[in-house]
């Protein structure tokens, strides 16, 4: 393609970074938010925030709800309340899909403010709200992220020499490049890990050839593969109906078996059948590997079917990768480190996108061959790809507080607000000059984030004035993080304003992107 390998990689890095960066920014942003999915869910359901029901009782109430509403579903799954979330989630199977609702453990009814909560961010970051097709798209984009990281390493050349280098006053292109390099290099282990482990979770779907070859093409064949890789008990339904034992008892037995309070989930296969199977996993707070502590019972008799599950090396590796990606371990410290690293990755993608146009704006001055029309499109899409998802996430939280609690199809409305605002951001970016679009959209983001805690005070009883004195940090942290985002936006806007004044005084007609120089 180009003369040397490193030049080819530079070309690949630049162009694939631009095209895929537009969507990667949103994926990394929502992925970082996913770390705190339960805290966000909790924040989005303030009415249920105070209820404190033990998991055993809560699970029984969720089972009642599922029995009344979805008695014929082939399987149920319940995520009980934990110290991170007072509400619980109830899933039921419909074909290949698993719809769910959030339940209030105190009443066993659908939580007053029905919402997908932080779960939406989890789903969006691997499906883009587009089902299986979305998973394939994210897979392709994730692969390009991996390639972006690897080609970035190839073209950097001076990783160790420039390890600590950041020169904010060395001109726009230099300082954006420094920032891009610094953010990328310092979180490189994290970025490689999170990208590859994300792909590894769905490896079975992306590359089905080994299983097709060794096991066969049918659904049963792939089930057989999962069975061998992760031994667990599957019983065929008998069509003899029988009454399921109370699920709370299984929770208690699991807590005793593993000496832990927290249960990750409890699932029931063929709930109304004689061969019902109840499976549970504890929350893995102290290990990376996921799913090696599966415990299974017969749902009707309570007989223990299986406890624990030793993995073989390769499967173990895959489960460790999954565990590293899910970040269920280690508590608040690891969650914050993941969140910060994720946001740094997000910022690295944003600086890369900006760098593309900064670099080419300069070339326009030197060489008239570069097309201004194309760069204008890039600049506008950059606004929609960077400011857009930030605004959309904020709109999602605003919609949660503004929509009436009893609204039918409430989760769909909230998600609608997310996409509507993102679309508005795109339209606005296309309509306004790019510089104005940056200013206006970041002003909007600053306002939305600074006012959100106020809105929270007006619309719920779980606001900062309550949560801070009570020391309820998990809830307060949501408000405080949004406030911090608002302050960051204000800081960015002030810098933009300061730079504009400076160029106005000196009278130089520097390209607007240089103004973004921080």
């Amino acid at each position, binding site marked *: 393609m180009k003369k040397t390998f490193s030049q080819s990689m530079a070309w*690949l890095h630049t162009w694939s970074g631009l095209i895929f960066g537009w969507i990667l920014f949103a994926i990394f942003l929502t992925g970082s938010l996913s770390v705190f999915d339960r805290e966000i869910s909790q924040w989005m359901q303030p009415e249920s925030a105070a209820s404190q029901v033990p998991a055993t009782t809560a699970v029984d109430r969720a089972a009642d709800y599922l029995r009344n509403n979805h008695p014929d579903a082939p399987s149920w799954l319940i995520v009980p309340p934990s110290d991170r979330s007072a509400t619980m989630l109830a899933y039921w199977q419909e074909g290949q899909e698993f719809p769910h609702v959030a339940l209030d453990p105190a009443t066993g009814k659908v939580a007053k403010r029905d919402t997908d909560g932080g779960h939406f961010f989890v789903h969006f970051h691997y499906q883009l709200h587009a089902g299986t097709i979305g998973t394939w798209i994210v897979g392709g984009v994730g692969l390009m992220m991996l390639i972006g990281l690897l080609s970035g390493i190839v073209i950097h050349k001076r990783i160790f020499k420039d390890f600590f280098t950041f020169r904010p006053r060395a001109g726009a292109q230099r300082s954006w490049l420094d920032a891009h390099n610094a953010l990328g290099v310092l979180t490189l282990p994290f970025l490689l890990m999170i990208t590859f482990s994300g792909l590894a979770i769905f490896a079975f779907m992306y590359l089905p050839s080994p299983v097709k070859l060794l096991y066969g093409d049918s659904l049963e064949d792939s089930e057989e593969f999962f069975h061998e890789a992760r031994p667990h008990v599957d019983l065929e339904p008998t069509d003899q109906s029988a009454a399921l034992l109370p699920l709370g008892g299984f929770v208690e037995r699991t807590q005793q078996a593993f000496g832990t309070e927290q249960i990750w989930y409890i699932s029931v296969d063929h709930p109304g059948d004689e061969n019902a199977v109840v499976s549970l996993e504890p929350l893995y707070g102290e290990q990376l590997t996921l799913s090696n502590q599966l415990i299974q019972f017969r749902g009707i008799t309570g007989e223990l079917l299986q406890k624990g599950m030793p993995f073989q090396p390769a499967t173990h590796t895959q489960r460790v990768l999954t565990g590293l990606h899910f970040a269920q371990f280690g508590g608040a410290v690891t969650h914050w480190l993941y969140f910060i690293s994720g946001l740094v990755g997000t910022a690295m993608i944003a600086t890369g996108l900006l760098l593309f146009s900064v670099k080419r704006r300069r070339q326009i001055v030197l060489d008239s061959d570069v097309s201004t029309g194309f760069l204008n499109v890039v600049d506008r899409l950059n606004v929609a790809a960077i400011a857009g998802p930030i605004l959309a996430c904020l709109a999602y939280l605003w919609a949660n507080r503004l929509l009436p609690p009893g609204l039918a199809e409430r989760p769909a409305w909230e998600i609608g607000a997310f996409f509507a605002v993102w679309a508005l951001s795109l339209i606005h970016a296309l309509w306004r000059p790019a510089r104005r679009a940056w200013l206006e959209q970041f002003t909007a983001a600053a306002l939305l984030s600074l006012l959100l805690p106020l809105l929270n005070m007006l619309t719920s009883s779980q606001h900062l004035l309550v949560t801070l004195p009570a020391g309820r940090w998990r809830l307060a942290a949501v408000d405080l993080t949004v406030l911090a985002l608002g302050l960051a936006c204000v800081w960015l806007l002030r810098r933009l304003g300061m730079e504009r004044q400076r160029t106005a005084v000196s009278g130089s007609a520097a390209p607007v992107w240089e103004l973004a120089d921080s």
Partner: protein
Amino acid sequence: MPTDSLLSRFMHLMPQSRHVMSLASRIAAALFGGYAVAYFAAAALAVILPLVRSEAAVTAMLLGLLVYAAAVMWVFSARSAAHAWLVLLIIAAVCAAVAYLPGMLS
């Protein structure tokens, strides 16, 4: 004169469009050729690896992802798009033969 300028314009466009075609071909090679290599390489690995079959399958899938990434990077550094296609297809064919021929013969 007008025809001349039109012709020269056309001539000017020619290498441009050939460039675009070659680039499109390269992207297609990375996307589809790369996937074919990863798909069949994973299948071949699954057969070759001396492991329990579930273990071989998992290892092959994880390595297959890396093969895909490497293939895409290589395509963009290859001499020409045609060369990239040729090499990818040969590797994919060899891997497919390693993976599927033993089953077909026995």
